[in-house]
């Protein structure tokens, strides 16, 4: 049994990540704590950065050498990383960035929230891209997604965001661990580190004053996103096979929906959950598939209507209803049930 934070850190280590740069912020402080304890023991480097700005640029440097590298933070810290994320994207560098979302905007609070959905899927700073984004809903899945994130990031040369929240970061659950893997020994063909043995020099760069070249770079990055969409889209379905209501939710909201669906079933209401495990790429196919077969689609999110936009864009014109709270207030399954009943009644 471990907390989501520790599972995230341990998942990274198990995947072969040996470099962690970060700056403390609640509710993810157990990640740096664990890393600072573990990494030095296995020949890795934990370095506390002086800020999130430094963190993401330390990550950028380490990533440019081809290393498996990670940072983690929470909402305000992720805002500070936006320029750096854009540089990672532009320079086609992989890295894993964890965001344990808290209530916002501003300093907000340290309660669980999902209001950084846009910042993750649409943000990553200026320019045309967002991060590949995982939205695990359990400690086990936090572990597994983080484990996979490094290989996936390297495969597509894209930064990968693990989008959690204060609740899954701090809950403890049973976690099946995989064997700790050694870091990859072969460096990718784009990694810098000195042009040893006479190989041609390499440059990591995101500056392209020649606009057609910049466009070509953007198109090739977009192509990798497309490929990732084909190969890496993940989702889970849960509940009734012939539902009247299709719930959709990710992360902690999905956990709440699962209980709500079980209870609704007891009350005779057939409901199903379609839960994206990746929100970028977004699992549009299953949405399109189910959209025509249900009476209503209900989106449950702990933000004021961010995730629902992607759902709307995927359900082929079916109306989507929103159940949401904001600012760190968590819904109970009872509340979801009650509000669903209201929707049905109205």
């Amino acid at each position, binding site marked *: 049994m471990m907390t989501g934070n520790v599972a995230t850190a341990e998942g990274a280590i198990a995947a072969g990540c040996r*470099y962690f*740069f970060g700056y403390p912020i609640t509710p993810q402080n157990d990640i740096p704590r664990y890393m600072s304890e573990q990494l030095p023991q296995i020949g890795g*480097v934990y*370095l506390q*950065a*002086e*800020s999130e*700005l*430094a963190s993401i*640029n*330390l*990550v*950028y*440097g*380490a*990533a*440019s*050498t081809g*290393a498996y*590298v990670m940072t983690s933070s929470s909402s305000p810290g992720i805002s500070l990383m936006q*320029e*750096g994320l854009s*540089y990672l994207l532009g*320079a086609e560098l992989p890295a894993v960035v964890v965001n344990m979302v808290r209530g916002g905007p501003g300093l907000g609070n340290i309660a669980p929230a999902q209001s950084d959905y846009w910042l993750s899927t649409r943000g990553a700073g200026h320019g045309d891209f967002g991060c590949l984004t995982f939205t695990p809903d359990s400690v086990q899945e936090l572990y597994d997604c983080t484990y996979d994130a490094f290989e996936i990031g390297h495969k597509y040369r894209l930064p990968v965001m693990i989008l959690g929240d204060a609740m899954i970061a701090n809950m403890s659950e049973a976690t099946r661990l995989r064997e700790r893997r050694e870091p990859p020994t072969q460096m990718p063909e784009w990694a*810098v*580190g*000195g*042009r*040893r043995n*006479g190989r041609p*020099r*390499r*440059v*990591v*760069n*995101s*500056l392209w004053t020649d606009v057609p070249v910049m466009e070509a770079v953007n198109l090739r990055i977009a192509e990798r996103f497309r490929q990732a969409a084909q190969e890496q889209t993940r989702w889970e379905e849960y509940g009734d096979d012939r539902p009247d209501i299709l719930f959709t939710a990710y992360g902690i909201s999905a956990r709440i929906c699962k209980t709500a669906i079980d209870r609704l079933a007891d009350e005779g209401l057939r409901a199903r959950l379609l839960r994206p495990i990746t929100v970028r790429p977004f699992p549009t196919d299953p949405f399109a598939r189910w959209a025509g077969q249900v009476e209503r689609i209900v989106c449950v999110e702990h933000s004021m209507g961010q995730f629902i936009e992607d759902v709307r864009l995927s359900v082929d014109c079916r109306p989507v209803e929103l159940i949401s709270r904001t600012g760190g207030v968590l819904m109970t399954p009872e509340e979801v049930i009650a509000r669903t009943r209201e929707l049905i009644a109205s």
Partner: protein
Amino acid sequence: MAQTTQTEALPSHEEAVYRRPAALTETQMRYCPGCTHGTAHRLIAEVLDELELTDRTVAIATVGCSVYAYEYFNTDSVQAAHGRGPAVATGIKRTSPDSIVFTYQGDGDLAAIGLSEVIHSAQRGECITVLFLNNAVFGMTRGQMAPTTLVGQRTTTTPQGRDPKLEGTPMMICEMLSGIPGVAYLARETMIDPKTVADARRSIKKAFQAQADGAGFSLVELVSSCPAWWHKSPLESLHWIRDEMLTQYPLKVFVDYKRQD
């Protein structure tokens, strides 16, 4: 000089006394005529060759007129976000400790937006080398005030001259860093005549030597020219450095490094 020792085969009738350093690519640098950015590049390249570090060096190009440095240094290179060079360099050094990593930063990049990163790197005693080009303006963005702009100096954004009451006084980076224990080599040099060029070269060499020996953080400030935005000829610019800049920024070796072997 780096190449003088490479004596050619006997029948030849010429011996190279000075050659373009191998650590510079053949690419023409895009600096304005007479801009000492180029001189600084040349000196760095000479030192890398002389210390035989070129093959294991990673150059960090930052944002400023020198943003294309990755086209000029014949080394692996990384272009870093504005001001973040030392953080990027640290990331590289920590994953790749036997590389030689240096940043090349203007005064806007280092003293304005990147101040925190350079100080924290120095404080950590990070084994990287920083080349700090102080030309008292933001060259690339068309001549705005920099933290190092002299009092009274007119720039694009101080049309009446820098007023210390409103904009403060020039930032003395070397003085500020000089008390930090992690700093192994620290000096301020310039490149306004053959003597100061030679001094600058010596300091750059010591800075890289300090890194190669794992002694800690090293930084060389190079008081540099910007003929374009000083609205002066190349030669006048060197004179302005001598007469004005060096009064504010005296040349000095703040922390000397002696190789222990």
